[in-house]
């Protein structure tokens, strides 16, 4: 008891010591800015009004993870600048401290954004939201009503032009349509808000616009930017990032707040992101840090930032520069709704977008689609399984250790084994560092992953739940075993995906490899380089390129199909990602393109070791070209191909890039494979790391079992 008190006292003194020492150091400020905004911040900090500051730019993808890792260790920043929607997470993890300020000079929505449960965590700096871009060459007047967009263009739009370019399948961009009907994505009390009549009507309107051809189908950010930049869109809904893209163009455009919808009379209100300066618990105790935060959010600093970085300030008492774009965004921000800070928001996106896509594709009516989305949301938000007793685990590990120890002892008694061990001691000296590296880099993470799979809950407050995750996965979360998205369904898709791909890789690679190995072929080197090229390009670049080619309106594949019309073949442009078969085919095509060069190279290598005289002997013996291929070439290259095929199968089984980037699991997650499904559980569904880890352990188990099985087969039937 006394010892414990002494320890506690020691720790407390040490902490105090550390904090006083820290007090002597400059204020540490982390941010994720780039370009103009980074320069503006640097200028502000350098102006000296803030004392000594240490700035660190952290990549925005890694921002939250780094904060979560550093702050609990006392290593993190005193202050950091981040978007307000992450506050829910940060507060829960204790990464951010309360930061009171005088709200009078700030936009009410911005203050609301940084307020959680009546307390403010961070001082708002800027506001970002989407607005309406208007191409002045195509549009006569700025319409006040959404319904008037079509009539406000100068002349009827030619084909290849669109009225309004926006990412209609994204929930973020659908949010303004929803608000125009008085709806919201996340309702009071962390309930799913995207249901009911308002949501349905908003979807009907969006679908109506799509059906009229006013809106490009399947548009992503790149396509919207491209359409507007090239002057082929009369209007676009996008954020300040698009304006950054338009700098160099001679395009004449305006930015105005989103219009109103006549049927309801309500404004389309976009989602608002508030960038705020936040304080870590340590920073909140340092007066100089608080001083810096106040200075960064001051009127003077806001004006400076507005001038230099063209961002809309969160303050209302700053004089707007004459920049019309900035004025447009400022007006848009005034009507925007702050993004919810609740962590439940993370579970909203995926089900909502699936519902939006289904409605836009016409596969489901709005009501059913939204009901399904709600079910999905509720499923993901299901409370984690109850904490389980650790005893079985301890017993299992103990039993395994004891069994291992017993086995070791029994072997150690064996004199032959001892002699062998003694003889190989010098050999171990040479491999020990490699073994250590393996343990550290492979087995360590593997075991850590396996350990995580036994827990549930979000990082920070996860609990041990035993095999509950595995049980949930293997029982298809209590639903029908082969329902869409269940483990077995995804497994079946993954197996089909792997078999089909490897078969195509092998067929194509073998054929081309054999052709390229023919001694009479001219310009062999050229073909070889050309055919290896798909392999040399990073796979995500290829995947994105192929996704673009499969775009329904603007893709190369569609262009080819339309070209076929000239020959009397009547084809409609295919919406590749609306149906499983076509989406799957698009994925497979991309992956075959990526994967066949590997098989080709392996084949060519195997062919060079093929004795020419053996082939000639077969030729003299009466074998046709095909017989020589099947009876001589294939059996002889088989031994070198088998490991390549095994490797290719494992790669394909886990080919995340292609599935994630090309079809993205569309339609409705049907083309997702096990890894991409695991990814979604980890990163788009409430950060269920334990559940995702259980998926990974299952994938590992499957692959491990498959390789053992194939080894066994090979040993049974050699060559």
């Amino acid at each position, binding site marked *: 008891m006394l010892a414990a008190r002494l320890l506690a006292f020691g720790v407390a003194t040490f902490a105090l010591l550390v904090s006083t020492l820290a007090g002597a150091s400059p204020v540490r400020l982390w941010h994720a800015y780039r370009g103009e905004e980074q320069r503006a911040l640097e200028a502000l900090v350098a102006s000296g009004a803030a004392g000594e500051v240490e700035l660190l730019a952290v990549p925005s993808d890694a921002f939250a993870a780094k904060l979560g890792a550093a702050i609990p260790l006392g290593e993190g920043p005193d202050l950091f600048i981040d978007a307000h929607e992450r506050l829910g997470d940060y507060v829960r993890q204790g990464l951010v401290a309360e930061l009171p300020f005088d709200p009078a000079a700030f936009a009410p929505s911005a203050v609301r954004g940084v307020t959680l449960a009546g307390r403010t965590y961070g001082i708002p700096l800027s506001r970002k939201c989407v607005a309406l871009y208007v191409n002045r060459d195509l549009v006569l007047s700025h319409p006040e009503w959404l319904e008037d967009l079509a009539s406000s263009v100068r002349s009827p739009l030619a084909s290849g032009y669109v009225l309004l370019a926006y990412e209609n399948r994204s929930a973020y961009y659908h949010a303004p349509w929803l608000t125009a009907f008085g709806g919201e994505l996340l309702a009071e009390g962390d309930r799913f808000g995207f249901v009911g009549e308002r949501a349905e009507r908003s979807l009907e309107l969006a679908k109506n616009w799509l059906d009229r051809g006013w809106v490009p189908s399947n548009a992503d950010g790149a396509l919207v930017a491209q359409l507007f930049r090239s002057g082929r869109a009369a209007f676009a809904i996008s954020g300040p990032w698009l304006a950054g893209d338009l700098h160099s163009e001679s395009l004449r455009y305006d930015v105005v707040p989103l219009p109103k919808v006549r049927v309801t009379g309500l404004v389309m209100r976009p989602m608002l992101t508030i960038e705020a300066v936040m304080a870590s618990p340590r920073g909140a105790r340092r007066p100089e840090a608080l001083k810096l935060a106040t200075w960064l959010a001051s009127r003077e600093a806001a004006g400076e930032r507005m001038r230099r970085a063209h961002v809309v300030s969160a303050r209302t008492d700053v004089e707007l520069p004459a920049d019309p774009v900035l004025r447009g965004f400022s007006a848009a921000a005034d009507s925007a709704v702050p993004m919810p800070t609740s962590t439940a928001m993370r579970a909203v996106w995926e089900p909502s977008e699936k519902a939006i896509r289904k409605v836009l594709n016409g596969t489901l009516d709005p009501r059913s689609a939204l009901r399904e989305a709600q079910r999905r949301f509720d499923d993901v938000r299901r409370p984690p399984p109850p904490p389980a007793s650790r005893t079985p685990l301890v017993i299992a590990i103990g039993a395994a250790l004891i069994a291992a120890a017993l086995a070791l002892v029994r072997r150690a008694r064996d004199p032959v084994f001892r002699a062998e061990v003694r003889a190989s001691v010098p050999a171990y000296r040479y491999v020990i560092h490699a073994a250590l590296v393996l343990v550290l880099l492979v087995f360590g993470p593997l075991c850590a992953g396996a350990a995580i799979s036994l827990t549930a809950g979000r990082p920070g407050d996860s609990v041990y739940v035993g095999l509950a995750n595995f049980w949930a996965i293997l029982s298809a979360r209590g639903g029908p075993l082969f329902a869409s998205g269940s483990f077995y369904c995804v497994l079946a898709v993954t197996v089909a995906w792997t078999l089909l791909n490897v078969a195509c890789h092998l067929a194509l690679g073998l054929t081309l490899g054999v052709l390229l190995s023919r001694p009479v072929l001219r310009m062999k080197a050229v073909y070889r380089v050309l055919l290896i090229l798909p392999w040399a390009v990073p796979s995500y670049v290829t995947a994105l390129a192929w996704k673009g080619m499969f775009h329904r309106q603007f893709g190369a594949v569609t262009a080819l199909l339309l070209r076929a019309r000239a020959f009397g073949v009547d084809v409609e442009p295919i919406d590749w990602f609306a149906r499983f078969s076509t989406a799957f085919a698009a994925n497979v095509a991309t992956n075959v393109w990526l994967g066949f060069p590997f098989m080709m190279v392996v084949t060519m290598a195997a062919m060079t070791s093929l*004795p020419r*005289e*053996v082939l*000639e*002997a*077969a*030729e*003299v*013996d*009466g*074998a*046709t070209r095909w*017989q020589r291929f099947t*009876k*001589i070439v294939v*059996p*002889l290259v088989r031994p070198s191909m088998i490991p390549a095929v095994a490797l290719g199968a494992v790669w394909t089984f886990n080919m995340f890039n292609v599935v994630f980037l090309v079809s993205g699991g569309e339609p409705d997650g049907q083309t997702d494979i096990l890894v991409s499904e695991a990814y979604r559980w980890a990163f788009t569904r409430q950060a269920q790391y334990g559940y995702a880890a259980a998926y990974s352990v299952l994938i590992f188990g499957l692959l491990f079992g498959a390789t053992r099985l194939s080894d066994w087969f090979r040993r049974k039937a050699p*060559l």
Partner: protein
Amino acid sequence: MASVAIERLGKRFGATTVLEGVDLAIPDGAFAVFVGPSGCGKSTLLRLIAGLERPTEGVIRFGERDVTALEPRERDIAMVFQSYALYPHLTVRENLAFGLKLKKLPPREIDARVAEGSRMLGLDALLERMPKQLSGGQRQRVAMGRAIVRRPGLFLFDEPLSNLDAALRGQVRVEIRKLHESLGTTSIYVTHDQVEAMTLADVMFVLNRGRVEQFGAPLDVYARPKTRFVAGFLGSPSMNFLDGTLAFEEGAWSVEVAGQRILLGEKSFGGLVRGRAVTVGVRPHDLTVERVPFGGLALTLTFVEELGGESYAYAFVDGSPFVVRLEERVSVKAGDTLHVAVAADRVHLFDRETGLSLRC
């Protein structure tokens, strides 16, 4: 069974001409041997006959059939490769049966032929082995067996013995000849080994630089080489060549070589012209040692090689190397002077410019 006739055959690989104007005829059932130094085009000629290469010009006929444009499998041939080229993934039995299965022969027939072939070559015990479990000699036999069971109209061999040791080579050589006698199939055999050529051939074709230099029965070619190249290529150790001039004195022809004289006798034949520059060729075996110096060559020995039954004495005449085969153990040593003579009809004379024999 077929005879083989080749007319004006030529083969170029890009800019290099490998064969040029090859004409030859091999009678039905004959054992023909192509012999020549390395790189002379023997293998290329054989591969043209097999159909593994296409000629640049010329015609190949099997009997009456023009096969120039046919695929190998349409030519009814079997070939034994220098590397044996066994199918490494098939057992000996499957290797033998491979060509038969492709012909879609009934299984009973295949079994019978494989059994017969393996009996002829003593492969019975090896039938279930893989090629990599065989010795070099055994592989060679399998390669031959694979050719035999096909019962082709023409056998082609490309240096089939060159990977065997000397003793085995002699043994297999005899077996090949025996096989040929029992099967009677026309065969073409490529080698650079003149012993093989001499012992196996019914008809021998000496190739040089892509041309047939001379052909005929092996002993004829050996005894009456038409060119200096053929004379030098056949025989071991090879023929001694000396440059000299023809002379006619006291009613007899002779060749003067470095102040010495080799007698040719009184009989005159075409091409004998006084003062003509010639190359004299004398085989080491045709020289006899003279106790008394008369009408022969005096040699100062530089080296003597004793092989037991016979020995070879080496010298230089007029700067050219010169070898003498000594019958019994003549006790000579380096530094001794040896007088040798040669029977006049064993002296070969070649035009110094063209290399053609003066005797024909």
